[in-house]
């Protein structure tokens, strides 16, 4: 007998328990339980935490926590060219494209999300939401995408339109 048919027979025989899947495996996960794990932020702003931070506050954090690897202005690629965070806007269609947050990334929320989960490289997940908004604002400022007096929060961050917003073409059949 085929295994999937055997399994189907077993499932039919089991009493249908409300609130449970067909096999009754796993434990309910409450929002409180998973709050510290639920760290993603989407382009529409879903998942962004409360908080706020300014370009100026971000400059201080950037100098202390980011510049050693990414360069004082983010354009240097201090350790490797791939670590450039700023510059290159308008270069993508040239023979020597400079791929950075400013020139390439389609959404500003991605910068927040990635910094929150993985940066600083030597101490991931160590920045508070306020610090994350601030350093995100500063990296966008280094790219000329925010003025020096700007402040970011969960409302304003998703509204930033990145220069390469329309540069990506999903491959056919990806969905």
């Amino acid at each position, binding site marked *: 007998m085929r*295994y999937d048919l055997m*399994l189907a027979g077993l499932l039919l025989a089991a009493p249908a328990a409300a*609130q*449970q*899947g*067909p*096999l*009754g*495996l*796993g*434990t*309910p*996960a*409450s929002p409180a*339980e*998973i709050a510290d*794990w*639920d*760290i*993603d932020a*989407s*382009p*529409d702003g*879903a998942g962004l935490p409360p908080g706020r931070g300014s370009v100026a506050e971000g400059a201080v954090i950037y100098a202390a926590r980011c510049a050693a*690897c990414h360069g004082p202005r983010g354009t240097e690629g201090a*350790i*490797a*060219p*791939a*670590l450039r965070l700023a510059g290159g806007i308008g270069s*993508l*269609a*040239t023979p020597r*494209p400079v*791929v950075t*947050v400013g020139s*390439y*990334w*389609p*959404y500003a*929320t*991605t910068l927040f*999300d*990635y910094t929150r*989960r*993985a940066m600083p*490289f*030597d101490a*991931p*997940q160590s920045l508070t939401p306020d610090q994350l908004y601030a350093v995100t604002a500063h990296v966008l400022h280094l790219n000329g995408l925010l003025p020096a007096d700007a402040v970011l929060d969960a409302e304003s961050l998703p509204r930033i339109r990145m220069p390469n917003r329309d*540069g*990506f*073409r*999903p*491959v056919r*059949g*990806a*969905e």
Partner: protein
Amino acid sequence: MPRLSRRAFAASAFAAPGIAAAQPLAVPPGMLAQGGPVDVPYGQPAATEAGVKRRPRAGPGYAPLLGTAGSSLTPLGDLDGTITPNGLHFIRHHAGVPAIAPEQHRLVVHGLVDRPLVFTMDQLRRFPTVSRLHFLECSGNTPFYQQARIRPDWTVQDTHGLLSCAEWTGVRLADVLAEVGLKPGARWMLAEGADAAAMTRSIPVAKALDDAMLAWGQNGEALRPEQGYPLRLFLPGYEGNTSVKWLRRLKFAESPFMTREETSKYTGLMPDGTARQFNFTMEVKSVITRPSGGQSMGPPGFREITGLAWTGRGTIRRVEVSTDGGATWQDAALQEPVLSKCLTRFRLPWRWEGGPAVLLSRATDSTGDVQPTRDALVAETGPNFVYHCNAITAWRVAPSGEVTLAV
């Protein structure tokens, strides 16, 4: 038959010109005394195989920050068959290998679901299990896009070593998703790792419900730490990065999450400045592993040409081999079983006459896709595409017998 002295026999048997008289074979010393112990807790290859090992790929300049290379390559030129021994499976990581105690590990499944659930490893192991043979290939394997960076001394380990194949054991993701119950709007799944990169990719739900697995087993034993121990996502045929290791969370939403790894990275930049995104499936590809770069032919005569072919779209239908740089092609034999989204070994008998030769292989898959030449591929993608290079690889055999990369 009259008895001949050993010396006379040797002389008459090997009288053909150019063949030296052989010394009598010594009795192997291992036959003259008891052998070594067998109470070795975890067996190792013979000491003389120590040269068969992973080698780091000369990678991004920030490798020292990681305290290690960002990736390590499978020695394909030294291996037979199609299964990669676990200790030689290629490694690619973005923030090192976390040490995870399996009893502490949790998988959270939430978002657009009816019943958000958290699973322990014990709970996952109670699902119906499945074992399948599949290749895994890093999206950045075979760095041939920039001609100036290709080096003739590259071996097949350098060019194709971000490719491995194993029997993966775990549960069908579809079965786990039946437990949480996907809501109608759930079209994308975020998969997140428990490493210091908190690696994340968005995966179409159609793939999650098709052949995706949550795997804990690799060739009969637990996943190796560098392969995601204790749990990884496994997406057959998709670029390796999507098979998120150390898997801790799956979240469902209507739209892709647009993580750094599917925008800044793992997208292909075209000459017009646009980029291809969500380029998941690894295309039809093959490479000759013997003879290949860095090997030497030895004396002229019979040789088997052998290599590997694979496609993320289904099965390998045909592999053609050329020994004259593509002027003529012959069909290679495919080793059965030819499995879906798995490595297939091919073989062609050949007589090397001692002259120059250029060896190529060209695979065709079950969708009819044919592996392109490097020129054709780069004409389509430009030189800055970085990922998904499935170009035909050429090995040049010099009259001396030395084999070098000739792409």
